[in-house]
C-alpha cells in the first residue's frame, strides 16, 4: 500500500503526514504539486500548512494546482483522499467536499488539544474506533470554523456525512474551539472515500508526542486493503 503526500509551496505538515503513515506501516512518498499523475498510489494525503501563504484564502490557490485534477479523479473513482487542516481547506476550495472553513470565532490561531467524537465507524478511516468514542487530538488553525448553508448542512446530517464532531473532554462547556456549525470537525463524501478534518490525527500517533488517538485512523486504512 502506497500513499502520495502532496507538497504545495507552503505545506508544512508533510513530514508529520509521512511520519504517521509510515508509523502505521504504509509507504509514503512526497509528490510536488505540479505533478499531473498519481498513478501507482492507493491514496493521497493533502497535509496541513499554509499553502501559498494562505494568500487570497486558505487553500484557494492550492485548489488550482495541477495535481488537483488527479485528486478529483481519486475522489470520483473511490480511491482514498485525506485532507487535514489546510488539506481540508483545499478539499472544500476545490469543491471535492462541501462547505467552507471560516475564521475561528476567536479570530486568532489556536493550538491546543480538543475532544473529537467519532460519529461513524463504517469508514476505513474510522473502523478501528468505537462509535461515540471521544478522541484527544490537537488542533492548530486560524480558519477552522466549518460553515455550510442550511440546505447543505441538512444534507450532511441527513446522509450521515459528519464523521467527527468536537466534544467535551472533561465536561467543559466551551469544547467547540472555533465555532463550527453543528460542532463539525470532519466530514466525508457520499462514497465515504474522502475525509476532510481540521484536527491533526497525524500529530497523535506516538506516546512520546503525548497521545496515540490518531494512530487507528491510519491503521484502519491498512486493514482495508489487506482484509
Amino acid at each position: 500500500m502506497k500513499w502520495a503526500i502532496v507538497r504545495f509551496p507552503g505545506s508544512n505538515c508533510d513530514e508529520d503526514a509521512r511520519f504517521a503513515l509510515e508509523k502505521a506501516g504504509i509507504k509514503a512518498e512526497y509528490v510536488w504539486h505540479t505533478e499531473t499523475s498519481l498513478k501507482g498510489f492507493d491514496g493521497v494525503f493533502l497535509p496541513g500548512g499554509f499553502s501559498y501563504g494562505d494568500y487570497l484564502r486558505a487553500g484557494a490557490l492550492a485548489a488550482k494546482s495541477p495535481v488537483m485534477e488527479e485528486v478529483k479523479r481519486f475522489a470520483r473513482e473511490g480511491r482514498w483522499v485525506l485532507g487535514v487542516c489546510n488539506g481540508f481547506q483545499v478539499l472544500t476550495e476545490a469543491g471535492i467536499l462541501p462547505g467552507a472553513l471560516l475564521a475561528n470565532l476567536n479570530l486568532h490561531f489556536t493550538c491546543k488539544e480538543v475532544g473529537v467524537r467519532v460519529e461513524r465507524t463504517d469508514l476505513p478511516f474510522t473502523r478501528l474506533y468505537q462509535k461515540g468514542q471521544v478522541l484527544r487530538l490537537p488542533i492548530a488553525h486560524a480558519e477552522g470554523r466549518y460553515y455550510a448553508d442550511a440546505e447543505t448542512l441538512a444534507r450532511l446530517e441527513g446522509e450521515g456525512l459528519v464523521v467527527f464532531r468536537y466534544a467535551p473532554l472533561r465536561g467543559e462547556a466551551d469544547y467547540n474551539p472555533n465555532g463550527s456549525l453543528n460542532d463539525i470537525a470532519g466530514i466525508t463524501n457520499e462514497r465515504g472515500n474522502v475525509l476532510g478534518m481540521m484536527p491533526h490525527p497525524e500529530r497523535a500517533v506516538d506516546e512520546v508526542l503525548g497521545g496515540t488517538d490518531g494512530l487507528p485512523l491510519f491503521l484502519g486504512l491498512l486493514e482495508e486493503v489487506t482484509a
Partner: protein
Amino acid sequence: METLAQEIGIPETEYREMVKRLGREPNQVELFLFKVMWSEHCAYKNSRPLLKQLPKEGEAVLQGPGENAGVVRIGEGFAVAFKIESHNHPSAVEPFQGAATGVGGIIRDIMSMGARPIALLDSLRFGPPEDPRSRYLLKGVVSGIAHYGNAIGVPTVGGDLYFHEGYRENPLVNAMCLGLLREEHLRRSQASLGRPIYYAGAKTGRDGIGGAAFASRELAADKEEDRPAVQVGDPFLGKLLMEATLEAIEKDLVEGVQDMGAAGLTSSLSELAHKSGLGVELDLDRVPTRERDMGPIELLLSESQERMVLVPKEGKEKELEEIFKKWGLDCVPVARTIPERVFRVLYRGEVVAEVPTEALAEAPTYVRIGREDPEIQRLRETPLPPLTADPQEVLPRLLASPNLASREAVYERYDHQVGTRTALVPGKGDAAVLWIKGTHLAVAAKVDQNPRYSRLHPRLGAMHALAEACRNVSVVGARPLAYTDGLNLGSPETPEGYHELQETIAGLREASEALGVPVVSGNVSLYNESGGRRIPPTAMVGVVGVLDVRRRAEMGFRRPGEVIVLLGEEGGEFGGSEVLYLLAGLEAGHPPRLDLERERRVQEAIRELIALGLTRTAHDLAEGGFLVALAEMTFPYGLGATVEVRTPGLKALFGEAPSRILFTVAKEHLKEATFRLEELGLPYRVLGETGGQTLTVLTPEGVLEWRVQDLVEAWKKPLREVLDG
C-alpha cells in the same frame, strides 16, 4: 566627507580610524559601509572585549561563537545548532513586523549552519500590563511571532515573558531557534578562491535601510519616524527559501552558506570573505530588485527579508539554480571571491567602493570605566519591611500576578507541535523537549532571566539566569550542554550602563565555569534606554540539553498517592521577590544568594533520579517560592496534594531561593530515592502526597486549603483578559 560622517552620526575618532585604515578619505558609499559594519549591532564594539572572558570550550561543542549559530553534538551523529537574537528596536516601533522578522532572521541563521529549524523560543519583556501601550506591544508581538512561526512551520515551544516597569519604553523581543543537523551537513560562512557567490530568495527593495545602525542607538521620542527602518517579513517566501536551501545542503551542492540579515549584502558578503581570508567583488547590477533606480548605498544596505547567500561547490552551479527554480525563487551569481582581501563593489560597470575586508570586519573596540548606579545600590541595601498577610489569600493573588499568571493565552496562539517532535508541550514541563525521531534522543531547551534580580544585582542576576535555565533543563531529565546568551542592556556610554554590562558578563562567566556549561552563540543589544532610563540588565540565557526521551519528567502531578519530596531546604528570601512586590509594592533588597556548587549537585541529583526512573514528575522552585511551585504542579492534570510545612512564617511559603526542586516518587521507591540524596549529601524533606481535588497545606500556624479548580481559574484569567481584550 567628514561633514557627512558627522551628519550620519560617525564619531570623529572613528572617522579618523577609517581614513587611517584606507590610507585615504572614504567616498560616500564607503562611508556608509563603515557606518553599518561599525555599528554596535554588527561590531560589538563595547561588548567584544568583555565577551572574551566567557568559557567557550566543551566536549559537545562543534562550533562556538563567531558563526551564524553555535552547534553542539547530541549523539548518534546528530547535532543541534542554536542561537538567540534580539529584535527590540523594530518591535518597539512596529511590534507585529518587528517580531515576525526577528523570528525569520533567527531561522535563517540556523539554516545557514546546514540545520533544519525545529523549534523556536521567545523571550519577551514589556512594561506593566495595565499600561495600554505595553498591552498593544504585547499583542502585536505575539501576533507577529504567530504569523511568521506558524506559517513557516517551525513550532514555538517555549520562552519566557516578564512585565516590569523598566521595559515600559523599551520592550525586549528576543527569539531563539534550534536546528537539527547531521554532523556531516555542518556548513559555515566560507568560500574558496574564485567561486561565484549566489544571491537567493526575495528581491531587494528599499525596506529596512539602515536597520543595523537604527538598532544601535537610543529610541527617539517620536518612534513613528523610524518606521521606514523596519523590515517586512513574508513567512511564505521564507518557507520556500528554507526548503530550497536545505535541499541544496542535503544534496551537497554548496560549500558555504550565509544569511542576509542586519546590514544586508554588505555584512553577509564582507564577512563571508573575511572569514575565508579572501576578498569579494560584488556586481550590484546583478542583484534582483523589486524597485526601480535603487542606488548603490540602498542596494548595499537594504535589509529586505528572506534572502540568503550561497556558494556552490565547483560544477554544482546548474543544479543549485534548478532547485531554486523549482521553488520559484531567484538564485543568481552576484559576486565572486578574489585573492585581494578587499570588498569591491561595482555599480553600472564602475568601482564605487573598495575597502579592505579586515577594516570593515574589525571595528575599533572600547573599554570603558564602569561605576555602579548609587540608586541601585541603595535599593539593594534597603532594609525590607516585615510582611504580614494571610497566606490563604496571598496564593491566589500571587498566581494571578502578571509575572506568575498562566501563559496559556500566549502559547495557544503558536503552533507548538508542527514537525511531530514536541515531546513536552508548553505548560507541561519546565523546559521544552524535542524528540529526534528514529532515535531515543531528545533535546531540551529553556530560556530564562529574572529582571528583578538582575536590576538589583546585575552579576548575581546573570548567574541566576544561567543557573535557572540549566535547572529547568535538568528538571525534565536533560544534561545541559551549552547556552546562548541574549544580552540586552542600556547604553554602554554611561559609567552605570557599562558597569551593568561588565557585571552581567562577569556573572555569566562565573556561573558558566561552575556549572561546566559553555556559551556557543549569542547576541548583544545595547542602547535600550529612553530619557536616561535604562532597562534592567537582561541576560536572556537559552540552555540546550540532551536526554533519553524515554526518561523525561513533566511538572504536573499525574498519579494519586505519590510521595512529594522537596530537594533542598524550606525557607527563602524576600529580596527581589514577587511576593514583596505584591504585598509591599517594592522591588528592593538583596536577591537570593546562589551557591553554584550546591546548584550543580542538585541538578545532577534530579537528573539521576529521572534517569533511574525513580521520578517522572519534577518542577523547580522559582518566582513566588514554594507554594506557587506546588500549586503549579496541580494544574496540568487537576490533581491535588496534601503537604506539611514545618517552618513557620511567610518566608517558608513564598520566599525565593535557588537550588530547590519538588518531585514525586512512588511509595515503593521512596527509600531508594532518599538514599540517593543522602549519598549525595543533599538536604531533602518528605512533604506529603498527591491526591484529591484540593491543595492542602499544614503549617505551624494552621491549615491552608484551596480547590485546585479555583486556583487554576485565578491563574489563567489575567493574561487571557489582556490578550483577548
